[in-house]
């Protein structure tokens, strides 16, 4: 069983069961299907960040670079008025993102601690300004994706990305796979060595493992999945804007993953849904929602020592 904790074994199936049947109770064009889709996409992004920050110990404040890149790479690669194949372009986008992660990772991983935070921030800010100032990609106004990709495999097409329900299930399927993927990776031999590099880097090094290589591999994995989430987000409304890779985006994702319970992987879903849910609630209650949002965050940091997942585990693991 890849889910070690009782809490996961209860919560994860519960979440996916509810999520699986949710659209059946909502109208297919309903706003809520779209809203939940966005949160699911964000959950994938936050999960990839949680893996890096919570499990590998790489505190990045530049993860949004890949979120934005997922959308911009599609805009750069795909012809404007022709529907391309979704699977092929997913492959392209993930491949190129992995390559970019490999190159930038080799640079940023030379630093540690606070300097790692700052150098990841610097690289993402650089790319933010690159797209912000670039006339060919719409500059600060952003750019539209006019043609959504088609999804046929060997001529068989069973998904229509223009249909909000189909798109919903694609993102849910992606979230499930991401979760299982991380769980499997972390339980593997590779995962255990990664765990060791975080707990005790010196000893791991002494055992003959090259820490740098392991960290770099993790950085590439996390970044690539972050880019995939960004690609999905760009496809949802067909809109890409430089703000997708602004540092605020990285900061918000970090808040969501800490809120959910750092390093728990499934906590990313809890954190993202809680954050978005609270924001939705406060926005509907009051014009000064920022005050409530900020206070809620402060309160949760103080009260919940290990995030929401940590709190639930305390209740359920006996």
């Amino acid at each position: 069983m890849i889910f070690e904790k009782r809490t996961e074994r209860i919560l994860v199936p519960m979440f996916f069961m509810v999520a699986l049947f949710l659209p059946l109770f909502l109208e297919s064009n309903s706003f809520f299907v779209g809203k939940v889709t966005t949160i699911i996409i964000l959950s994938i992004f936050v999960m990839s960040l949680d893996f890096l920050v919570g499990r590998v110990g790489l505190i990045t404040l530049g993860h949004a670079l890949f979120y934005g890149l997922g959308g911009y790479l599609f805009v750069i690669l795909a012809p404007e008025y022709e529907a391309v194949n979704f699977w092929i372009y997913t492959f392209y986008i993930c491949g190129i993102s992995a390559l970019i992660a490999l190159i930038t990772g080799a640079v940023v991983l030379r630093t540690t601690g606070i300097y790692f935070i700052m150098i990841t921030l610097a690289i993402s800010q650089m790319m933010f300004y690159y797209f912000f100032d670039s006339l060919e990609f719409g500059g600060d106004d952003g750019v539209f994706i006019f043609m959504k990709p088609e999804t046929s495999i060997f001529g068989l097409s069973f998904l229509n990305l223009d249909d909000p329900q189909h798109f919903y299930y694609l993102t849910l399927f992606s979230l499930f796979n991401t979760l299982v993927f991380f769980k499997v990776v972390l339980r593997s031999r590779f995962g255990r060595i990664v765990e060791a590099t975080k707990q005790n880097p010196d000893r791991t090094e002494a055992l003959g493992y090259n820490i740098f290589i392991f960290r770099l591999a993790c950085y590439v994995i996390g970044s690539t999945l972050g880019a995939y989430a960004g690609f999905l987000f760009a496809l949802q409304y067909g809109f890409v804007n430089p703000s997708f890779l602004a540092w605020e985006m990285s900061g918000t994702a970090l808040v969501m993953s800490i809120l959910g319970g750092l390093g728990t992987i499934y906590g990313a879903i809890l954190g993202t849904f809680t954050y978005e849910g609270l924001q939705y609630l406060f926005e509907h209650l009051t014009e000064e929602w920022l005050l409530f949002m900020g206070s809620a965050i402060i309160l949760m940091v103080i009260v919940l020592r290990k995030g929401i997942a940590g709190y639930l585990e305390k209740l359920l693991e006996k």
Partner: protein
Amino acid sequence: MSRMKTLLCAAMAASLATTAATSSAASDPVKIGIMLPFSGIYAQLGEAGRDGLKLALKEQAADLHGANIEFIEMDTEAKPARAPELASAMLGQHEADFVIGPVHSGVAMGMIKVLRGKDTVMIIPNAGAAAATGPLCSPNIFRTSFSSWQPSYPMGKVALDKGYKDVYLISWNYGMGRESLEAFEESFEAGGGNIVKKVLMPFPSTNFQPHISDIAAQDPDAVFVFFAGGGAIKFVKDYDAMGLRGKIPLLGSGFLTEGTLEAQGDAAEGVLTGLHYAEQLDVPKNQAFREAFNTEYGHYPDIYAVQGYDAGLAIADTLNQLSGDVSDKQAVISTMEALTINSPRGDFTFSRAHNPVQNIYLREVKDGANVVASIAAEALEDPARGCKL
């Protein structure tokens, strides 16, 4: 932030004043979605636009044929990433008949992506992005503000008339800044003027001092700029602090001195700008509007309130002509595009791309106010390049 506030009193006043037979629409409210920034850098612009909009509908309540108006407010925070989601909430969740917004051009793009070609009529009360009434124009997209081209284009001619041959251009390197400088260049160079230097500095940097030193070194006949909000305040103050005011005339798109004069103080005296409005504009409607706004909200309105007010007028006039029935969207659009809006800025109509055809006034800052010197361009129509309507 969809705090729904139904203007019940308006509907009630209307139904009392008119006989019961006027309308069948009373039961089915007309939903107006407001998508403006109420937090963050542009919050003040959002609030002004909303207040103007609501004032217009309140004033016109008697002419709405008993239509119930329901407002749905959402805070865009000026964040483009959330724009499509909020717009689709307006469309899918609230089924808004009209959506008013936004302020920020990036948000406008995100909204247009969702609303373009839909039944809901979108009225942009500020964002100047050329694309909105250019390549992306659509029958259901209207604008009651300006295109970035409009306030700047006439200023090229103004500069020539003043005898300035060599002009230095500076703005931020973003859509509005680039489009404003290009519009100035277009008319200025066509008249034989010479651009000494064109600087697009990084947005949103306000480190103007090095550039002002450069202007002093180049010593042009005049300087033309586009800056707005906090940047406009700082540029004008820096320009004065470095001793260039009174030596090298400063010209700009009107936002340079709009809603910023108090903060700029004496530093703004003598600045020349072009805009489709001026607070002391001598139009009867303007005086009435300013007093009504002050009575309602306790302070005088700015340009953003005017633009929101005109969006409200466009809706009210349309409702009036259609007897409060907005079920036929084609009728709504064809009614709205034929309107003449009796605006505080003077009457205006809509161009084929649904951008206002309006006067641009040349204003000079005197004793802390934008005083209208002349009409820089009469009934100016945006060229709407790329629009296929």
